[in-house]
């Protein structure tokens, strides 16, 4: 029997549910320990589970012709698998995998859909969440088109920072390069630019956020729109 309590969950969507809506999902949730780079959703394969991240976060990447670029990020504010399931596509062209390991609460598609069909309030919250995911994707497109690599790295670090405990982000330059779609040397340059502005401290295999406000200013409007919409739509800010 599941002993997951709403009072102790860390996922922000689950926290926002009414007691009744949480009770619809609760018997079907099971805890999953996640590992670095573990695949959660394979491209073009049926989605069988949705996952509410509790600790750690996932990347959504487009993998075309050997070029992998991150097109989305889902942490404790979100639900992995929400789009293909709620929008009834069943599959997604993207690869979703664990970028920061931790813990997620998994639920099979059938009981999740039954709960969404039963409760209008649950459905409404999930659709609002999907809207914020759409905005995140559009903001990523905007950032990629309008900003330099350094600004995009600042935005990306802020998005990671939102999804970890504390100020440390475990990441290699190789992985930053993959996520931003740049050369590894390019990632190193961008890290150096932010470090030179005293915004972060780089260590081997990890980064520490030193000046979050400075990073937001450096991100120059590429960061914040999605987060404000999430606060407004999900948390009633």
């Amino acid at each position, binding site marked *: 029997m599941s002993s997951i309590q709403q009072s102790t969950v860390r996922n922000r969507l689950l926290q926002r549910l009414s007691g009744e809506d949480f009770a619809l999902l609760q018997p079907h949730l099971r805890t999953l320990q996640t590992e670095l780079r573990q695949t959660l959703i394979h491209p073009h394969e049926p989605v069988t589970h949705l996952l509410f991240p509790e600790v750690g976060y996932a990347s959504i990447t487009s993998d075309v012709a050997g070029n992998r670029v991150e097109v989305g990020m889902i942490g404790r504010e979100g639900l992995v698998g929400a789009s293909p399931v709620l929008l009834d596509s069943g599959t997604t062209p993207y690869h979703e995998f664990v970028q920061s390991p931790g813990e997620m609460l998994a639920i099979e598609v059938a009981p999740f859909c039954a709960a969404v069909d039963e409760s209008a309030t649950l459905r409404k919250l999930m659709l609002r969440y999907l809207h914020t995911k759409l905005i995140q994707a559009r903001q990523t497109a905007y950032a990629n088109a309008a900003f*330099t*690599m*350094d600004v995009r790295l600042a935005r990306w670090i802020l998005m990671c920072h939102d999804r970890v405990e504390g100020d440390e982000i475990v990441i290699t*330059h190789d992985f930053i390069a993959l996520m931003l779609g740049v*050369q*590894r*040397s390019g990632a190193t*340059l*961008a890290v150096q630019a932010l470090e030179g502005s005293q915004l972060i401290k780089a260590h*081997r295999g990890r980064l520490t956020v030193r000046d979050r406000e400075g990073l937001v200013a450096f991100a120059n409007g590429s960061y914040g729109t999605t987060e404000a919409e999430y606060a407004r739509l999900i948390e009633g800010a």
Partner: protein
Amino acid sequence: MPRYYFNLRYRPGSEGVAVDPEGEELRDLEAAQERALAAARDMIARTRTHLIRDWTACVFEIEDEDAQRVLTVPFSDAVPNADYG
């Protein structure tokens, strides 16, 4: 396979280099040179950063695992010479 470190020099002096902390395993020095040229070509074509005004002034200073310089690859080698004919 040997590991090569692709330090990127973008201006003179000790602060004008982005030191590669991770390196990359490649077959041999020739493969490392090809890798450097491909990376330079890609950066010239589509990477914008505050740090660099002119990519063709940049140079890869490639080092081996003992931090010995084994090859220097100017970014200008990655672009064909202009044809003034």
